[in-house]
């Protein structure tokens, strides 16, 4: 089926299977910053923004993106360079596999939580983004500085 949506600020039109996941569609476009991990919504590697809210693109059926605003880590890195800079400054990554998803969550957290969010709220917000390198402390610090603006 024909699918039209806005991808990282640019209009996009392509053919997609009615049961394709948004992860598959994005990766087929070369946007491999969106990783596929668990495919069941629990790890956060595939996080993208749809209409400014974070979603697991592995569970998001591509046709449901019709007419909507999709932002991937590639676009957000250009739109919000300060978010990436916060992860660099706080060394919020080790192996890096979870980092794109954490960066997308950080970008969403800024509008969802707002300045003044308590650390407990930030940790709660990251509940579904796993880091197997256990770098949570530096990730939470990176998010804290993003949210504080």
């Amino acid at each position: 089926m024909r699918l039209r949506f806005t991808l990282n600020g640019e209009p996009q039109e392509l053919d997609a299977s009615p049961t394709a996941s948004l992860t598959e569609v994005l990766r087929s476009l070369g946007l491999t910053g969106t990783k596929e991990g668990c495919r069941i919504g629990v790890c956060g590697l595939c996080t993208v923004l749809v209409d400014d809210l974070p979603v697991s693109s592995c569970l998001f059926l591509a046709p449901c993106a019709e007419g909507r605003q999709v932002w991937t880590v590639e676009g957000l890195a250009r739109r919000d360079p300060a978010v990436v800079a916060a992860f660099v400054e706080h060394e919020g990554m080790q192996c890096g596999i979870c980092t794109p998803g954490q960066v997308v969550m950080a970008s969403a957290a800024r509008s969802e939580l707002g300045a003044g969010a308590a650390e407990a709220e930030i940790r709660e917000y990251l509940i579904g983004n796993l880091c197997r390198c256990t770098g949570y402390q530096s990730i939470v610090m990176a998010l804290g500085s993003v949210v504080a603006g």
Partner: protein
Amino acid sequence: MAPAGVPDALEALGAESSVVLAGGTSIGLLLGQALIEPSTLVWLGRIPSLREVAVEDDRIRIGATVTVRELARHPVVRSRLPAVATAAGSVGNPRIRAVATVGGALGHADPRQDLPPALAASGATVEIAGPGGTRRVDVARLATGLMETVVAPDELITGVDIPLPEAARGVYLRFTPASAADWPTVSAAAVSRRGPDGIVTDVSLALGGVGPTVLTVPEAGELKGSVAPSEEDIRAVADAAGRRCDPVADRLGSAAYKRAMAAVWARRALQACLEGAGRS
């Protein structure tokens, strides 16, 4: 396909092996694992009437495709239905809540889901549209078994209707001994109402995770009639909840453990919702 109205959706659902798609957090998972192969997915995301929330003096109607995030943040739900707001805010993680819908939370009928116990304890009814018209079913009676509901394949959940009583107090507690983002081992929702004199006029209790469907505990009604129900009476109801439940052993706990935890968390929910005489 993406019908623009409920009648079109119902017509599409009349076809063999067509399935309702709402947020798709469960459908996406089942498709990804090749556990379902529907001929047609009837997506509800283009039906404006299903996205509406209507507040009246004594009730609130939530459309089926209102998201769990929107439910958790709705000011009336937060102020007057705290058990429902807490349950909605506990669903999975922020990415799930942004997408999963109220209709999906009911239609999926996984007994560990957070919303059904909170909605059942709040006396909510589900609105179901079908070829023969619309009918209403109590949330407590919607699920008939593990992932099975009274909703026929050619029917659609269109919304949920929740009473907004005066002087009600609601609590939702979730016992999640594994990762915080995991399913609860046991969850308990308790809602109490009081008269103008502070006397408890009604108490309802519903548990999740401890049987094939949400478990309602009618003994909770015995706690009405006084300003401050005794500790003993609360324990008796909580123990009755433990006896009524029918849990299965899985990675979240053995059946005996879940039964014991059901009584503990039922007691805590009742205590929290009944503490403080006359408080609204």
